[in-house]
């Protein structure tokens, strides 16, 4: 279906090729995962298949890509629309119309289809993605998962043979992600559509894909069965890490396979007592907080206490009230009822300057805080704002990531680098409370690990209270001492991470699923247990 012959891709003024002599074939009806570090050619590869690269996005291309017998050299992306559909990273960025129906019909309108044909196809597409009941809704009012499905429907409406998705699950909570992946699985198996997904969160996708295409940093790539590729890759999901750590003969890609291979470990290894962490005094106390927007109750009667040196994860589906809770704690959201106090004083009594010193907030879009023209300038500004000696922030940044050139424009930084920069800016004033909102979106495993280590060090060394709102179950398992679960505005769980995550099947990390009913969350836990048994 798709054939790459000697494809090399270079962007003008870049010093490295993005792809180097890629030659491979993808058959019809395959689901292929494209993986690699951030900044590797994953997105570019996807866009090569539908012609966006190089015709639309620019670039210097050698070699040929043939899709269903047609070469992308000679055809504009729109001409391939009937064969290849693409769903970009942020579906909401790609929407053109206000209602679901109009959006799905957009492509057909552009290609001058007859109205009756358009009606029929729109109905089909709505049924295929299960959105028929939402057809006249305004897209802005839909949830993330529903929006993702609208984007998929807009592509399906052209009856494509290939569907390309760029990080389809990064913005979704685990349950919505499962739904989307199940939908894609059905499309592959029922309609024989070839699906290619670029994704960082390998643990979500790994069970569904037929083959994996790995792109390395120098542009070289490998296409093969999941077991082969995962054996050689250094970016691996937790169950593969587990298999490697336990020296299993084969690595499995599904929970079931790895479970079968680890029966003996499950039965023989001893329990490990949870490490007792001494936490400091309570820093944040929220009592019976209710937040109401007009008619809707976003948060109802929530109470919690956070201690210094403790890392707490805040989880829940989108719309469950996580952002309302966070915004109330930092004082930008007025509460309809209840009290919030930080370090003994009610949050509303702090002046905004005091509050800025007290709380470090890393927003979901780290770029919201960056508006100067170089990394160095931002650090200097941070030093001045927090009355620090010059160079403190930059030094902090270099501790975290040494390879950042201070003259880089913030826009040119990778996701991980931008996050590190904002963390340094926010931590420069040594706040007592650090809050991060979805920090791991777009980060690959290595960057996530660096972040986890860094945050642990901060909590331990400076006794900072850390609160992270996230969907990333693996991060929570690795890092958080405590987990709070919100659903529909109510707090439904609040306790040690291991208790909360093990109690919920949908939000359990991979290792827990494999090793259930044993109480292990991460590979580290299992290894510790092994170590204990050998002593």
């Amino acid at each position: 279906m798709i054939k790459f012959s000697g494809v090399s891709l270079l962007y003008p003024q870049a010093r490295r090729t993005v792809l180097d002599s890629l030659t491979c074939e993808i058959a019809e009806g395959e689901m292929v995962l494209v993986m690699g570090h951030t900044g590797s050619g994953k997105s570019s590869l996807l866009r090569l298949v539908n012609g966006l690269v190089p015709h639309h996005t620019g670039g210097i291309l050698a070699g040929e890509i043939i899709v269903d017998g047609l070469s992308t050299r000679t055809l504009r992306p729109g001409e391939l629309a009937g064969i290849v559909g693409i769903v970009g990273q942020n579906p909401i960025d790609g929407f053109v119309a206000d209602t679901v129906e109009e959006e799905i019909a957009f492509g057909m309108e552009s290609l001058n289809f007859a109205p009756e044909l358009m009606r029929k196809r729109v109905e089909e597409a709505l049924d295929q993605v299960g959105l028929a009941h939402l057809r006249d809704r305004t897209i802005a009012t839909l949830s993330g998962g529903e929006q993702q499905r609208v984007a998929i429907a807009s592509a399906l409406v052209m009856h494509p043979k290939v569907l390309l998705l760029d990080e389809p699950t990064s913005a979704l909570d685990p349950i919505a992600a499962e739904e989307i992946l199940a939908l894609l699985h059905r499309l592959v198996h029922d309609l024989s559509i070839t699906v290619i997904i670029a994704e960082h969160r390998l643990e979500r996708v790994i069970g569904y894909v037929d083959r994996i295409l790995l792109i390395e940093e120098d542009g070289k790539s490998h296409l093969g069965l999941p077991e082969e590729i995962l054996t050689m890759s250094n970016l691996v999901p937790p169950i593969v890490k587990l298999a490697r750590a336990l020296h299993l003969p084969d690595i499995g890609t599904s929970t079931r396979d790895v479970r079968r291979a680890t029966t003996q470990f499950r039965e023989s290894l001893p329990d490990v007592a949870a490490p007792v962490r001494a936490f400091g005094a309570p820093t944040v106390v929220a009592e019976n907080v209710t937040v109401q927007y007009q008619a809707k109750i976003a948060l109802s009667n929530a109470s919690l206490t956070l201690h210094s040196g403790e890392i707490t994860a805040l989880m829940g589906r989108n719309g469950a009230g996580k952002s309302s809770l966070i915004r109330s704690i930092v004082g930008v959201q007025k509460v309809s009822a209840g009290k919030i106090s930080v370090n003994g004083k009610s949050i509303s009594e702090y002046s905004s300057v005091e509050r800025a010193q007290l709380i470090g907030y890393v927003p979901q879009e780290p770029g919201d805080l960056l508006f100067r023209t170089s990394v160095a300038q931002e650090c200097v500004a941070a030093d001045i704002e927090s009355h620090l000696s010059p160079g403190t922030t930059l030094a902090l940044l270099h501790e975290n990531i040494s390879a950042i050139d201070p003259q880089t424009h913030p826009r040119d930084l990778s996701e991980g680098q931008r996050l590190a920069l904002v963390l340094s800016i926010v931590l420069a004033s040594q706040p007592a409370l650090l809050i991060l909102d979805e920090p791991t979106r777009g980060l690959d495993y290595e960057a996530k690990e660096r972040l986890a280590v860094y945050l642990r060090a901060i909590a331990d060394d400076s006794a900072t209270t850390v609160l992270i709102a996230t969907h990333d179950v693996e991060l929570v398992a690795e890092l958080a001492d405590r987990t709070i679960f919100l659903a529909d505005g109510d707090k439904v769980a609040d306790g040690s991470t291991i208790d909360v995550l093990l109690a919920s099947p949908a939000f359990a990390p991979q290792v827990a699923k494999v090793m259930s009913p044993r109480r292990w969350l991460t590979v580290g836990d299992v290894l510790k247990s092994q170590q204990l048994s050998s002593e």
Partner: protein
Amino acid sequence: MRTRLSLSLLIAFSLLGFIWPFLVPSQGLADRASWFFLASTPIAVALIVALVSQEELGSKKIALLGTLTALIAALRPLGIGAIGIEPMWFALILAARAMGPTFGFLLGSLSMLLSALLTGGVGPWLAYQVCAAALIGTGVALIPSSLRGRSEVFALVLYGVIASAIFGIAMNLQFWPWALGSGTELSYLPGAPLTENLTRFFSYHFLSSLAWDIPRAILTATFIAVAAHPVLNALRRLQMRSRFVEPHEIEELVLANVRAKRPSVDR
């Protein structure tokens, strides 16, 4: 050819809509003229916009047009409350400079139209605002396109100041006949000599809107001076070209880039 002709006619007609108080000979005709122009200028402007938009712009420009229109429309209310603070002009001028006069025309007219629709500022003044903003967007093309660097920024700042002043004059020109009415000392006098009406107008202009014009000019100039470089770069970067080459040429290109020590751009 036919389009050029109709375009010129329509533009001339809209300009007439601004300056008719100077030309009308008698009071009776004046009242009719007032309503006539209030009604027909919107139609003329709409037709101009329709004609200009016949040119194929391509998905990148249309996406950018829509997004920047939204940006300007969202930024405009930030200035309400402070007199003369109108953040829209610097964005319009810079975008028009990077993307060309047709784009500038459309961006000016659409953003003005959209922000009026959204804030409820729909009234007889709208067509004139749309026309003026559109012409300001197009006028950027008067700056020679080969200008870059410091001189480009300087030219743009100058243009920004002039444009702010002209916008103020244009707005007052159209307010003049119907907001003030006839029969006041400062109103236009049908049939009076040009100098008489001009003095009246300028007195009116100074008394009423200098307070808006000066801050607008200052703000626009400052923003352009500060933001020209990054914004123009960012916009120009969007227009990357594509090339097809043989495999060995890629290696050569890489070597050339490495030798030239260009900073690597993460994609």
